[in-house]
Structure formats: structure tokens, C-alpha cells
């Protein structure tokens, strides 16, 4: 690309990171961050479809949602909230360090972000494991994939009765089931975004270690920061919506 630019003789000496089709570093940076923002809007709508389902079924099936939500581990969920907001802080500080051109600080803050991200996923793994062991993962036709994993109602309490022990509470069971579906869909999709984020983070960390970023050019850190913050924001909504449906009484 730089060859073509040279032969065209269009570009005066410019920063080596400036791509051929931009006129200035400022334009390039504004373009990249704006692009990320537009992408995040699509992400809002992507989660929006699931939030729509959540809203409808919460309205219809509040008892089931209350029973199922109260079975989620609020300690683990709360810890994860703290962890994720903490990682938001570290990534914000990483961008800050990159803006100031402090390489070492950027590297360590990115590592901290990654560690917190992994901690979040590990905690999530243990939460999922409990649900899996309790057969709360709706599996439907995939019995062959999860032998003996038929959906069961673990100790979901509704109106003082254990739902799993009372056949007449079976209707609550389907409500619980729908909550669990939405829970796994939302948190699963969120966790997938975390995993992708950690993958991107690894690439950026490598670039940071190699000293590729500078005061003038640190676009990747910045747009990664935007992405990571967005994932954090999703969790900020997921936590009260999933874990805190009906904690009183």
C-alpha cells in the first residue's frame, strides 16, 4: 500500500501508521473510533432482541422469574459485577496511559484487564457448572449431546413450595424454564463477547509489548477500550435484571 502511495506521489511525509486513504492522523483516529461506536450500536440492538424477550416473559411469568432468579448466586454475580467494573477501570487507565505514551503502564494495565476478564469467566464457569449439575440447562432434543441431562427443576421455591416436588406447580416449571433459557442466552452471549474481547486483548497486548503504540497512534487500544466498556455496560444491566428480580420476601 505504501508503495502505491509513493508512486502516486500524493502523500507528503506522514506518520508511518497513517493509511493511504486518510488525509491526516486525526481523520484516521476519528474514523476508527466512530466506526467502533457504530458497531456498538449494532451490539445494543443485538442484545436488544433478547432484552425484548426478557421484558415480555418477565411481565407474563413474574412468579417463575422470581423463583428462578432467587436461585442464582448473588454473591458470585455481585463479585463478577465488581470484577467487571474493575476491569473497566483498568482498561480506561490503559487508554489513559497510552494517550500519555507510557508503554510499560499500558502493558501492565492491559494485563490487569485480561486477568480480571479471565476471573469473570472463571466465576461464570462455576456458576454455569452448578446450573449444569442441577440440570437447569434446558437441553430439549440434545439429550444425545448431554446424556442424562434432561431439564429438571432443582430446588426452585415458589410460594413456599419446592417447584420440583409439586406436580401441580408444573406451570411454574415452564416459567422457570423460560427464565433459564433467557438467562443462558443473555449471559452466554455476554460471555462470548468477553471471550472475543480477551482474544482481541491478547493481540493488542502483543502490540503494546512490542512498543507499537505511541502518543500519536494508539487507535487499537482506544477502540478495544470502547468494546470492553460496552461489554461491561451490558453486564451492568444483566446483573439487576437477572439476579435481583425478587430478592425481598
Amino acid at each position: 500500500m505504501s508503495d502505491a502511495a509513493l508512486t502516486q506521489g500524493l502523500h507528503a511525509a506522514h506518520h508511518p501508521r497513517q493509511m493511504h486513504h486518510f488525509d491526516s492522523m486525526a481523520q484516521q483516529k476519528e474514523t476508527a473510533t466512530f466506526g467502533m461506536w457504530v458497531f456498538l450500536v449494532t451490539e445494543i440492538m443485538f442484545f436488544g432482541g433478547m432484552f425484548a424477550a426478557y421484558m415480555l416473559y418477565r411481565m407474563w411469568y413474574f412468579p417463575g422469574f422470581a423463583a428462578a432468579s432467587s436461585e442464582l448466586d448473588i454473591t458470585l454475580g455481585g463479585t463478577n459485577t465488581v470484577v467487571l467494573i474493575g476491569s473497566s477501570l483498568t482498561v480506561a487507565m490503559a487508554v489513559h496511559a497510552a494517550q500519555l505514551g507510557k508503554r510499560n503502564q499500558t502493558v501492565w494495565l492491559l494485563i490487569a484487564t485480561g486477568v480480571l476478564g479471565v476471573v469473570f469467566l472463571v466465576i461464570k464457569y462455576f456458576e454455569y457448572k452448578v446450573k449444569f449439575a442441577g440440570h437447569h440447562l434446558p437441553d430439549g432434543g440434545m439429550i444425545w449431546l448431554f446424556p442424562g441431562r434432561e431439564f429438571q427443576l432443582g430446588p426452585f421455591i415458589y410460594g413456599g413450595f419446592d417447584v420440583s416436588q409439586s406436580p401441580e406447580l408444573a406451570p411454574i416449571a415452564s416459567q422457570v424454564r423460560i427464565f433459564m433459557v433467557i438467562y443462558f442466552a443473555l449471559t452466554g452471549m455476554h460471555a462470548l463477547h468477553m471471550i472475543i474481547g480477551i482474544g482481541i486483548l491478547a493481540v493488542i497486548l502483543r502490540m503494546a509489548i512490542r512498543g507499537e503504540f505511541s502518543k500519536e497512534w494508539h487507535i487499537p487500544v482506544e477502540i478495544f477500550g470502547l468494546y470492553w466498556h460496552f461489554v461491561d455496560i451490558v453486564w451492568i444491566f444483566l446483573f439487576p435484571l437477572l439476579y435481583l428480580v425478587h430478592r425481598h420476601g
Partner: protein
Amino acid sequence: MAPSIPIFPEQASTLASRVDNLYFFMLATSGFFAVLVTVLVVFFAIKYRRRHPDEHGEPIHGSLALELIWTGIPFIIAMVMFVWGASVYFALVRVPEQALDVYAVGKQWMWKFQHREGQREINELHVPVNTPIRVIMTSEDVLHDLFFPAFRTKMDALPGRYTQLWFTATKTGTFHIFCAEYCGTRHSGMIGHVTVMTQADYENWLGGGSAGGSLADKGQQLFSQFACITCHRSDAQGRGPVLNGLLGSTVHLANGNTLTADAAYVRESILNPTAKVVTGFQPIMPTFQGQVTEEQILALTEYIKSLPAAAAGSGGTGGAGASPAPPTPGPTK
């Protein structure tokens, strides 16, 4: 049916002409605009054709007045169409009080109709002329749509829900029934006929064959068969609410809400008994999901409807005044 070439569907219901009038109005209005624009385009294209290669058009940039006119006029016409369409729609969805109920259940790939008098038909429906008919429908599997082109009405039949449509046929004869919502392989085979008969013919037809008695009779058999009767006793001593006079009455629920009992409530209470528990009763009724078909639910509903309203003094309160069931929580089937 004679293979003649129809250009217009037969008008065979009271509302058909209202729908058609709206259609003609739309045809006229949009025809006018289509012709107007087409004539202008053709006229301009000929009059202002390019006469030599270097010619330019006149630089006319626009006119606020014209823009306002051709924003305003379509807007007004659109609002007229909306209001007209809405008024026809109200007529199509507002069922007359004295309508005769017929039940329809869609199933891949047939329509099953049940008359209250007990007749059951598949892909055939017999109705009397000049009588408002309401079809209450549901589906046993996927989405279907009951479509009567000659009556200008249709409605989706959804699994798990009741929907309805109504019509008053104005002509005797045989007309198409189509399934209009794609429902799988034999979707195009899910068609039938509605036969509109004179009142007298219809009475005869009704008298012809109702082997199992009326729909309510069938419901009564089911009521015993499923042992509903052990809890839902008419003497207000059962563990479930008295059902006499239930439909149309106000039900007070355990969670403090009230509702007006209708077919959907009855259906939900059979399949999902704990969803709406009557106040003073325990959520002890087992679900009948998977044990009872949609048609049987309709029969049960019809039976409940036929119960004398004034029994046991519980009146229209859906058994709220009955003594509450003994407190037996937990698994008591």
C-alpha cells in the same frame, strides 16, 4: 364449480360490500394518481426530449409551495384511507351480541369444526344464512389461518390461544375455505367449503346427525371421564371452585386480581391450573396438558357454559363464596 373466469370475488356476507367499497375507493384514488404521474412522465419525456447532444435542462431547483402541496395532499388522502380502513376493521372485529358460536381447530392439514349442537365436520362448515356466526378457533400444532374470501375475512389460528372471526352470510351456496397461513407440506390441501343454507335447511341438517349428543353433552362425559367432577362439585363442597355460571362472571384471584372468565381462562385453567388460582382455593389442581385435546377443551368449556347459573348460590362469582379447600399443600394428586 364452473371453470369460468372470475374477475371479482363473490360478495356473500354483510361486510363484503363494505370491504369492496373501500377497495373501489382505493382503486379509484390510486388509479387517478397512477394515471396522473404516468401521463406527466410520458408527456414530459416527449415534449422535452433531447434535441441535440449538448443540450441542458433548465436549472429549476424546486418549489416549496409544490413540495407542501404534494406532501399535504397525499397525507390527507392517506388519513382518509386510514380512517375508512379502521372503520371497516371495527365492523370486522366487533362480534354481534347474538352471534352463533362455531368452534374450529386447525391441525396439519385440516380444519375441524364443531357445532354446539354436536355436529362435527372436517373441511366442511355448514352455517345458516342471515345469521351472525362467530368462529372461535385455535390450533393443535403450528399457525394456520382461516380464510373465507367470499366473506372478506380471515384470522390466524394459533396454538395455545383462542382467536375469533365473525360473519353473516347473505347468500346460500358453497364458498371456499382456505388456510392462508403457511403450515407445511400440505398447506395447499388445507382447503374446504362453507355451505350456507337457509334457516330451514340448516335446522334439518342439524337434526340429521348428532350421534354423540350436543357439544355440551360431550363435555359432560369428559367432565366425568377426567374426574373433574370430584373437585368441581356444584354443591360448593368440592376442593375446586363451583363452575356454574362461571363464563362471563367476575373471578377473584388469590393474588388479588380479578378477571372476567372467558374461554381462554377456562382453557388456561385446565392446562395451567396454577396460573390463575381463585381466591380461597389452594393451587392443587394437576395440569391436563397433553391429556386433553383442543377439541375436548372446547367441549368442556361448552359444558361449563351449559351449567345452570344459579346453582348452590355461588352465582356469578365463580365459586368465590364457596368454602375454601382444606389446606393441603404439597403433592396431592
